[in-house]
């Protein structure tokens, strides 16, 4: 449970040195794109910060987002759970189950009323609540009940942020995103399939440092991480500008590291931090391993046509539509032609030769 101790006190209790603490603050400041001079201010703020209680709800999801979080490196998951936040309820990570687990949630809500953070992964089924329930409670009900006393809601992953794969056409469960349900609390979207772990922890860290939420874009995403597109920061960009493209995944161009636009990279319209923070503690990111960006942090990316179709191509297949249009065009053209001929025929039939008399009359 969330204790009354400040973060500084907790860290000292755990034997974290001043030096280690400052190192952590520097990492966070750079992650949040703060100027280097602000490290001291971050340290001072964090020193005094109280650990917020976090309630993590998992709805229609694949656990990929939690998997991603457990690969967090700066700060580490252990540090995050033990040191900076009090993760009071998490379906996947908590030891308790059944009524004990639900009891933990209720208790955390009561003790930290108005101050706790709710993290949600997964979308919510509205079609039939029975598609996804926890302890007999429907997802929507649990969300509404839990956010009531929350300071803010963090929608982690593209399912929670935008509906994700459960909402992909034809959306069998009637899935919706968190922001479609929660209207009276601030909602931060941290999309990605999965989201980058340091982005999840970065948002939590921002809340701790500044006691509020980071600046968001029009889709509710923190600008510090989603301000740039993958393309803006892609190391293959010079090849894009020169017009050097890999034609397939294993051709000469691909081996030389040329741009992946032709094989379907959606980097130009995808806002995320992969190209800068990378994955697995900065090891690499999809484009570095030779695969184009799928656009996983953008709304409806599952319905955006094939992952391997270039961005400039239409999302669907137009052959049938075009064939239908051609048939319709020929039919309509024939009808128009027939109509024109009729008019011409009528005009000819009505035509009366002008006589000399007529000309004299009119002059």
């Amino acid at each position: 449970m969330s204790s009354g101790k400040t973060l500084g006190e907790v860290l000292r209790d755990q034997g974290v040195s001043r030096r280690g603490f400052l190192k952590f603050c520097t990492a966070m400041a750079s992650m949040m794109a703060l100027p280097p001079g602000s490290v001291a201010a971050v340290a001072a703020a964090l020193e005094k910060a109280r650990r917020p209680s976090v309630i993590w709800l998992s709805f229609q999801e694949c656990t990929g987002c939690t998997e991603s979080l457990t690969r967090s490196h700066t700060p580490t998951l252990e540090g995050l759970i033990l040191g900076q936040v009090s993760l009071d309820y998490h379906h996947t990570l908590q030891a308790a189950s059944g009524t004990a687990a639900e009891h933990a949630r209720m208790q955390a809500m009561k003790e930290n009323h108005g101050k706790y953070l709710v993290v949600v992964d997964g979308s919510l089924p509205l079609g039939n609540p029975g598609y996804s329930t926890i302890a007999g409670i429907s997802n929507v009900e649990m969300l509404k009940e839990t956010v009531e006393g929350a300071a803010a809601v963090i929608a982690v992953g593209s399912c929670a942020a935008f509906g994700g794969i459960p909402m992909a056409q034809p959306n069998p469960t009637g899935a919706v995103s968190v922001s479609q349900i929660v209207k009276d609390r601030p909602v931060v979207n941290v999309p990605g399939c999965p989201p980058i772990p340091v982005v999840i922890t970065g948002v939590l860290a921002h809340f701790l440092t500044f006691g509020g939420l980071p600046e968001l874009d029009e889709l509710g995403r923190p600008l510090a991480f989603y301000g740039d597109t993958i393309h803006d920061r892609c190391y293959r960009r010079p090849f894009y500008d020169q017009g050097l493209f890999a034609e397939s995944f294993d051709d000469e161009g691909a081996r030389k590291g040329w741009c992946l636009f032709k094989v379907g990279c959606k980097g130009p319209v995808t806002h995320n931090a992969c190209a800068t923070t990378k994955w697995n503690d900065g090891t690499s990111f999809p484009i570095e391993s030779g695969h184009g960006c799928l656009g996983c942090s953008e709304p409806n990316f599952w319905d955006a046509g094939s992952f391997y179709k270039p961005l400039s191509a239409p999302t669907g297949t137009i052959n049938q539509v075009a064939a239908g249009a051609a048939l319709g065009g020929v039919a309509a053209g024939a009808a128009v032609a027939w109509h024109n001929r009729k008019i011409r025929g009528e005009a000819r039939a009505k035509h009366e030769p002008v006589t000399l008399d007529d000309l004299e009359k009119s002059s």
Partner: protein
Amino acid sequence: MNGGSMDFLLWVRGTGFNIAMVVLIVGVLVRLIEILALGRKADLAPRRSDGKGSGWRTIFTRSIPPPGMLKASPVTYIAGYIFHLGLFIVVFLFVPHILLIKDLLGISWPGLPSALVDAVTVITLITMVAVLANRLTDPVKRFLSGFEDYLVWALTALPLLTGYLAFNHLTPDYTFMLALHILSVQLLLVALPFTKLMHAITFVLARWYTGDIFGRKGVAS
């Protein structure tokens, strides 16, 4: 969740694209069949022998200004050439455009470096402005111009402008600009069969016909 720009982009790449293609295909076919079905009366006079092939030749020879005309209206000709050529380069030699054609028709060809196409876009836009200025300042042209002429100009200039702004990331929201670019092209395609833009297709027929008639009459160009 309202996806804003992304939803807009998905619409123009999906439904919007289909609508534009249907209108374009139906419109062009109707217009072509309408023109061809009208027919002409059989020419009973015997063809002059030197007129053979005149129709085919004229399709190309009419692309060269008649003697003296280049001097008489330099802006029309020079700017006209540059912007038609520029349009061709931008539309058919920019890699993302070639990929679109490849996706639709399965055929492709090598493209030009993006930076070069970018430069051509700027030149084309400048000449289009010159053409418009000329139309507005020349009293005869101005008198002869109607709403459709300005509409067609705008419909042609918009894709160039939005494409340029999008490609160079000159607006804060690239996704929105890209979607706007695709939409502007769709407006152009939708308007094509029903406006003077139809000349992009009928110029071949019209020139062939003129050349052939002239050939028959022994005055082949």
